[in-house]
C-alpha cells in the first residue's frame, strides 16, 4: 500500500486519541477530530482501535461529527480491526449513505464470511441512493454467491461505473467472462472517473486480455501502471501470462507518449499555445495528453520558452502541470531543459514523485550524456517506476550496465526487466 501521506499530521498516538475522544462541542478551534481519526492509521494498537470504535458510537448528527464517524469506520477497516465488526455492522443501517459506504468497504477490508452480515450488505443493493459499486465490490471480494442475482440487476445500469462493477462482479462470481468487453469499452468513457474506475474493475476481474487496452486508456499513467502492474502480478502469479507478454504495454505506459493513447477528446480548432498550456492543469489527464500532443505537433518552436515561463510562474507548484512540462520538454528534445529535468529527477517531494520517472524518460529523449550518472543515481531508490524508467532511459544512451545492478532488486517488476536483458 502506498503510505506516503500517512504521517501527514505528525501527531502522537496519545494526542490523537485525546482529540478524538473530546466531545464534538468542546473541540478547540486549533484541533480537528477528523484529522485525529485519520492519523490513527499509524497506530495498530488496541488503544487506537478502541478510540475509533468510541468515535463510531458518537452519533451526533451534525456534519462535523458525521465526517469523523465515517472516517473512523474507514480507518478501522484499514487497520483490519476484526474486533470492530459489530460496531461497523451497526453502521450498515445508517441514514447517511457515505457512512454505509465506508462500513461496507471496511467489512471488505477486514473480511468476513458471516452470512448475516453478507446478506445485509446484499440487501443494501435494493435500497435507493446507496454506493452500489462498493457493495458489489465487497460482495464479490468476499465471494458471496447468493448475491449474483442482485448484482446482475445492475449490469445495464444507466451509470456506466455501476454497470462496469456489476459486469465484473458477475464474471468473478460465475466465471462467465462473456460480458467483460463492455467493461473494456468503458476505458473510453467521456468521464475520467468512469475510465479510472473501469480499470479497477478489470483488475478485480483479473481480465488479463485488457492489458493492451489499459495501456491506451487516456488517464494518468499512475492508473494505467497500477492496473497493468496488479494484473501482471496476479496473472504471472497464477501462470496465466508471463512477463514478456506484459512488458511492451508496461513500457509503453512508462514511456507515456500521447500518440500511444486512444484520446477521447478533440479540439474543433487549433487553440492558442497559452490555452493549451492551461489545459496541462486539467484534472482529466486525457485533456492534458491532447494538449501535450497538440503543443508538440503545432508549437514546437515557441512552446519551450512559454513552458519555462509557466513553470516559473505556476507549474513548479502544481504536480499535474509539473509532470506534463517534463514530458513535453522530452518530446521536443529541448536540450536547454537539462537542468530542469535533473532537478525533477532528484525531487524527493512526494507529490512530484511521478515527475521523476517522467524526467528520466525525457532525459533519454534529449540524449545529453551528462544524464547517465544522474540516471544511475535513480537506480538506487525505492521507487519502482523511477528505477524502471531510468533503465529505459539508460537503454537509449546505450548504457546497459543497469541490468546487472538491478538483477536482484527488491521490486519484482524491476528484477524481471533487468533479468530479461541479461
Amino acid at each position: 500500500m502506498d503510505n506516503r501521506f500517512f504521517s501527514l499530521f505528525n501527531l502522537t498516538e496519545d494526542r490523537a486519541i485525546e482529540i478524538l475522544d473530546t466531545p464534538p462541542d468542546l473541540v478547540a478551534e486549533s484541533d480537528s477530530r477528523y484529522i485525529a481519526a485519520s492519523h490513527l492509521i499509524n497506530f495498530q494498537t488496541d488503544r487506537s482501535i478502541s478510540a475509533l470504535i468510541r468515535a463510531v458510537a458518537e452519533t451526533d448528527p451534525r456534519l462535523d461529527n458525521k465526517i469523523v464517524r465515517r472516517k473512523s469506520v474507514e480507518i478501522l477497516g484499514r487497520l483490519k480491526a476484526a474486533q470492530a465488526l459489530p460496531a461497523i455492522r451497526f453502521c450498515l443501517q445508517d441514514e447517511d449513505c457515505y457512512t454505509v459506504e465506508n462500513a461496507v468497504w471496511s467489512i471488505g477490508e477486514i473480511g468476513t464470511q458471516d452470512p448475516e452480515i453478507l446478506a445485509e450488505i446484499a440487501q443494501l443493493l435494493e435500497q435507493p441512493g446507496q454506493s452500489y459499486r462498493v457493495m458489489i465490490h465487497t460482495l464479490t471480494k468476499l465471494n458471496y454467491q447468493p448475491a449474483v442475482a442482485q448484482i446482475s440487476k445492475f449490469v445495464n445500469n444507466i451509470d456506466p461505473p455501476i454497470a462496469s462493477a456489476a459486469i465484473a462482479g458477475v464474471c468473478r462470481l460465475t466465471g462467465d467472462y462473456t460480458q467483460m468487453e463492455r467493461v473494456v469499452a468503458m476505458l473510453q468513457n467521456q468521464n475520467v472517473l468512469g475510465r479510472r474506475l473501469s480499470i479497477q474493475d478489470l483488475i478485480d476481474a483479473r481480465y488479463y486480455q485488457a492489458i493492451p487496452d489499459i495501456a491506451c486508456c487516456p488517464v494518468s499513467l499512475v492508473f494505467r501502471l497500477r492496473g497493468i502492474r496488479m494484473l501482471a502480478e496476479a496473472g504471472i502469479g497464477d501462470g496465466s501470462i508471463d512477463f514478456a507478454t506484459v512488458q511492451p504495454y508496461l513500457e509503453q505506459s512508462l514511456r507515456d507518449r500521447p500518440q500511444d493513447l486512444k484520446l477521447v477528446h478533440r479540439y474543433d480548432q487549433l487553440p492558442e499555445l497559452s490555452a493549451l498550456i492551461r489545459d496541462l492543469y486539467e484534472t482529466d489527464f486525457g485533456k492534458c495528453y491532447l494538449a501535450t500532443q497538440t503543443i508538440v505537433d503545432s508549437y514546437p518552436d515557441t512552446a519551450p520558452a512559454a513552458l519555462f515561463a509557466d513553470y516559473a510562474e505556476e507549474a513548479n507548484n502544481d504536480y499535474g502541470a509539473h509532470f506534463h512540462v517534463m514530458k513535453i520538454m522530452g518530446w521536443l528534445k529541448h536540450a536547454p531543459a537539462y537542468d530542469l529535468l535533473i532537478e525533477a529527477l532528484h525531487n524527493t517531494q512526494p507529490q512530484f514523485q511521478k515527475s521523476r520517472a517522467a524526467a528520466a524518460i525525457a532525459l533519454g529523449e534529449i540524449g545529453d550524456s551528462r544524464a547517465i550518472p544522474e540516471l544511475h543515481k535513480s537506480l538506487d531508490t525505492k521507487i519502482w517506476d523511477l528505477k524502471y524508467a531510468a533503465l529505459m532511459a539508460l537503454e537509449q544512451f546505450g548504457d546497459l550496465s543497469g541490468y546487472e545492478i538491478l538483477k536482484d532488486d527488491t521490486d519484482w517488476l524491476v528484477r524481471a526487466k533487468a533479468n530479461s536483458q541479461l
Partner: protein
Amino acid sequence: MKSVVTTVVASADAAGRFPSTSDLESVQGSIQRASARLEAAEKLSANLDNVAKEAYDACIKKYPYLNNAGEANSNDTFKAKCHRDIKHYLRLIQYCLVVGGTGPLDEWGIAGQREVYRALSLPTAPYVEALSFARNRGCTPRDMSAQALVEYNALLDYAINSLS
C-alpha cells in the same frame, strides 16, 4: 448537466407526464435563489485564487509541525496538493452555483472520487480542513450578501460531506 430543472423534466419525461405542481414549485424555488447563487458565483470567481490560498494557508497555520522539508510532512507537500485540489473543488462549486444544482460536483468531483482516494490511500483530511476553513471564513456583508453566503456555504458543506 444535472440541475433542478433538468431533474424535474427528466423525471416527468420518464413517467410520461407533465411536471407536477410540486415539481414546478421546486423549479420556482431554484429560480428565486438564482440571483443569490449568481452573486456568490461571481464573487467566488473573482477571488478564487485568494480563497484557495487562504484555505491552505490556514491549514498550515493550524498544523505548524508540517515542516520536515522535502519529506511527506513538508509544508510544500501539503500546500501544493491543497492548492491544486482545493481550486478544483472551488471551481466545481462555482459551476454548481451557476447551474443551480449539485450536478457538477456529483459528476466531476464526487462520483468515483471517494473510491479513487481510498484505492490510492490519498488523504482527504487536507481538503476537508481547507474547505471547512473556507466555509467558516465567509462573512456577510464583507464577502457577499447573506443569501449568497447561504448558497455558497451549502455547497461547501456538500463538498465536505461528500469527500470525507
